[in-house]
């Protein structure tokens, strides 16, 4: 398991989620744990708590993971997914208030350098207007 903070990308669109993950991979390589998911339980636009839980498990790192999400439901469903994790993991999974694509890339770049969970989150959130 990687000692670097993991990145989870959650979009309403499976294509947007995959495209964002592709950009992160190209820019920071394979050293950072990364997972993505998108689409509702039927595969249409939306998000799916079960898929988010799986993505969190796939990208899990003992250093923690940050989630980058797009619109409202992606955030609420990500909160639900975090609450379904084992208790000791819940505090190590945080949602960034940041734009999806730019936030994922900034977070991954910071994580690649070995930054802590709080530092990775803060770097992504610098992109959001105060």
């Amino acid at each position, binding site marked *: 398991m990687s000692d670097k903070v993991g990145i989870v990308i959650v979009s*309403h669109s499976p294509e947007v989620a995959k495209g964002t993950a592709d950009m992160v991979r190209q820019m920071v390589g394979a050293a950072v744990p990364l997972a993505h998911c998108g689409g*509702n*339980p*039927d595969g*249409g*636009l*939306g*998000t*799916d*708590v*079960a898929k988010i839980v799986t993505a969190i498990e796939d990208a899990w790192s003992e250093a923690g993971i940050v989630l980058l999400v797009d*619109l*409202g*439901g992606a*955030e*609420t*469903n990500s*909160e*639900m997914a975090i609450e379904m994790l084992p208790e000791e993991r819940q505090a190590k999974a945080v949602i960034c208030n940041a734009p999806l694509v730019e936030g994922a890339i900034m977070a991954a770049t910071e994580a690649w350098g070995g930054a802590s969970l709080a530092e990775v989150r803060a770097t992504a959130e610098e992109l959001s207007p105060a």
Partner: protein
Amino acid sequence: MDSKLIQRLIEAVVDRIVAAEAELTALDQAIGDGDHGINMKRGTGAVRAAAAELAAKPAGEAVKDAGMQLVMKVGGASGPLYGTLLMTLGKLWPDPLERAGLATAVASALEAVKARGKSEPGQKTMLDVLFPVSEALAAGKSPAAIKAVAAEAAEATVPMQAVRGRASFLGERSAGHMDPGARSSQLAVEAVCDVLEAAQ
């Protein structure tokens, strides 16, 4: 609460929501992302598919598990919101069932929904229907009176301006349409009250 009543309540709520799919979608296209009807149909459909299994459980468990189905199957923000409502309500369900205990459980469940949505009444959401309904329940109102409260409360969301969710991006333009979550809440409350009236 007997299992036949639980099953009738599930059927009634699901029927009402599924019948309103087009209306909920149209409301959501006006001020949201246009998926409320289809999402609620998918979520409540999952609850219906599990109805027999749910009805065999103690009422509190059934309500909690129905909430979990909504969380897992709705696919939009309304899943965690309605799911949190039912999961909290189920956890606090009074046994034996009596009105004061139920009213307290509903009030606590609404606090959980507020926290989940980071929202307050007056922001053009489902809370604008559910809070007056909760108060009417606590005040001992009849099912018919509670239905009237829900209808009036849903109507009152029309002029409101949204500050949460997708609708908030529209700012002032969100005024003039009924909130789709308020409407689906009203429909669910009506369906529950209809069953309770018929059972009296």
